[in-house]
């Protein structure tokens, strides 16, 4: 029968007897645990930020770009040829079963004016589907309709940044703003989304019916052409299906023979974003792995000091054996000592790591996320380190010959 409370007291006393040494040994664990926590917090902060940005772009997005044009042997890159029409967008919406919604796009930049305020912003011409595709919600007002698109009415939806810059705290609904001197009625205000992955302010925008953008704001040499089409698939599982359906449909509509290349490109935007998210996550894991090396080094420090401790206390071990301490009494004494070192170090490391992560987000503005799991993981890992590196010295102590130990000088 092993007397745990008494063994625990013995271990604590031994640690107190060498405060400096115990403290320095603990420091290794403190730094290791602290580093692991900070790195995990920074890493998961970064990947959460990216997921938020992905979510703010709209989910399950596919982007269809026109093909490239060739002039004098020079291929001009994607989007230089106008091959996509409003009809294509409508056909995709109508015929592709894996598609939830479609937004043809014609965008540009323009100066917008209200009263004595003016502001340069992005103008996005699109259909009513844009709100659903991009996961926009309206903070106030109503969306525009198919009717608005058909008759190219002069109505607009304001992003939060654009609205704030023109109206301040006043209510923009029903007011008339001018885009390139043309009056538009503000029929809705979009709920804020924040920055995109590329650092753009997604709220600095004005959405108008695509026909209005084409005919009245920007004009176009090719009526009915769109810059690109953004498509939302029904679900993440149907992305590939949607891509295939769109490709097939557009090839048919553009009358491409099997030998001709596509005159458009279909890209899975979500996939690209997810790749970015995954690489961030891998980066975070890498950081944590590097930090855990320092935890390992801390563990070796514990083993080192425990070996010294066993040697120093050989005589004590001999005395304990003489009065009846069994193998596991001795082992536990040293294992508990190592565990105490590593767990106290772990707790201090957690406190420092959490504080450090908070400081980073407050002072440096990094987004950090401290999950309960990462704290438990770091604590558990430090305990394992103590157990692992404490066992060999404890084993060594328990295998001493009592006579030799008693006469050790």
């Amino acid at each position, binding site marked *: 029968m092993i007397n745990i409370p*008494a063994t625990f007291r013995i271990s604590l006393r031994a640690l107190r007897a060498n405060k400096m040494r115990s403290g320095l040994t603990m420091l290794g664990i403190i730094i290791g645990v602290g580093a692991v926590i900070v790195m995990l917090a920074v890493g998961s902060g970064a990947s959460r930020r990216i997921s938020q940005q992905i979510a703010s772009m709209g989910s399950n997005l596919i982007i269809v770009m026109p093909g490239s044009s060739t002039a004098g042997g020079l291929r001009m890159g994607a989007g230089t040829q106008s091959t996509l029409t409003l009809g294509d967008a409508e056909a995709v919406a109508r015929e592709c079963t894996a598609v939830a919604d479609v937004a043809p796009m014609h965008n540009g930049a323009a100066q917008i004016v209200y009263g004595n305020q003016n502001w340069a912003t992005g103008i996005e011409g699109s259909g009513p589907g844009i709100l659903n595709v991009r996961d926009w919600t309206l903070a106030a007002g109503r969306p525009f309709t198919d009717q608005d698109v058909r008759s190219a009415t002069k109505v607009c939806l304001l992003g939060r940044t654009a609205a704030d810059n023109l109206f301040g705290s006043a209510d923009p609904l029903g007011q008339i703003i001018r885009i390139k001197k043309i009056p538009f009625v503000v029929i809705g205000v979009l709920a804020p989304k924040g920055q995109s992955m590329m650092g753009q302010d997604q709220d600095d925008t004005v959405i108008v019916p695509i026909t209005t953008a084409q005919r009245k704001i920007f004009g176009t040499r090719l009526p009915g052409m769109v810059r690109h089409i953004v498509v939302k698939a029904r679900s993440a599982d149907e992305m590939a299906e949607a891509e295939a359906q769109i490709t097939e449909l557009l090839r048919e509509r553009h009358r491409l023979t099997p030998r001709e290349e596509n005159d458009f490109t279909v890209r899975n935007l979500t996939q690209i974003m997810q790749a970015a998210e995954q690489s961030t996550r891998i980066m975070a894991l890498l950081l944590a792995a590097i930090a855990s090396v320092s935890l390992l080094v801390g563990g070796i420090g514990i083993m080192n000091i425990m070996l010294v401790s066993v040697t120093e206390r050989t*005589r004590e071990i001999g*005395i304990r054996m*003489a009065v*009846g*301490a*069994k*193998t596991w009494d001795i082992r536990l004494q040293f294992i508990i000592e190592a565990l105490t070192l590593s767990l106290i170090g772990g707790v201090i490391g957690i406190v420092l790591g959490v504080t450090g992560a908070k400081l980073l987000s407050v002072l440096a503005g990094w987004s950090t996320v401290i999950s309960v799991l990462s704290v438990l993981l770091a604590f558990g890992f430090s305990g394992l380190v103590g157990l692992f590196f404490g066992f060999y010295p404890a084993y060594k102590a328990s295998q001493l010959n009592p006579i030799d130990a*008693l006469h050790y000088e």
Partner: protein
Amino acid sequence: MALIETDRLSKIYPVGETSVRALDEVSVTVQPGEFVAIMGPSGSGKSTFMNVIGCLDEPTGGGYRLEGVDIGRRDRDALAEIRNRKIGFVFQGFNLLPRTSALENVELPMLYNGIGPKERRRQAREALKMLGLEGREKHHPNQLSGGQQQRVAIARALVNQAPLILADEPTGNLDTKTSVEIMELFVKLNRDAGRTILLVTHEPDIAAFSGRIIRFLDGRVISDEPVRH
């Protein structure tokens, strides 16, 4: 029933190609309540004999029965348990734990046999009181004189009610006056409390306190006779 009974007990250490017979077929019987002194020059085998009797070392041949129980080949933990319950050790160098109070030093054997903390404390206090160390419970070994330290060690040897006390040169580090005090303590323990005591010494004056002297030479018993007081 004899307390200690050895039957041609041998301990042979291999040294290079030859071997040293530290114990050469030693047969000794000690009855409960005896006070035996073991004498002999260094290297005579008396320490090896004590280590084997104290279950700190295992013989290479022969038999050893303690309270009628055969202490043959046993594993470490079984020997530890026998030491804990049957034997109290008193050493020349006191062998108290440093930075540990007298009370806790006396409690030590009870840490390893499942006696509750309150009972442990009570018995340790009682043992210290019996040895005249009342009021010194909180003192650490370095705050006690040699004689006091040895009395703490004796209290530790007594506290488990072990039938056998093994004292290895218990007065070796003490001055003459203190040595006499300690020896009188042993005599009292033997006479009044009925403890069996095995004492290793090379001083005839100290051996004279006992009731029987066994002399060792070259691993053999050369004489075994009662002391005439």
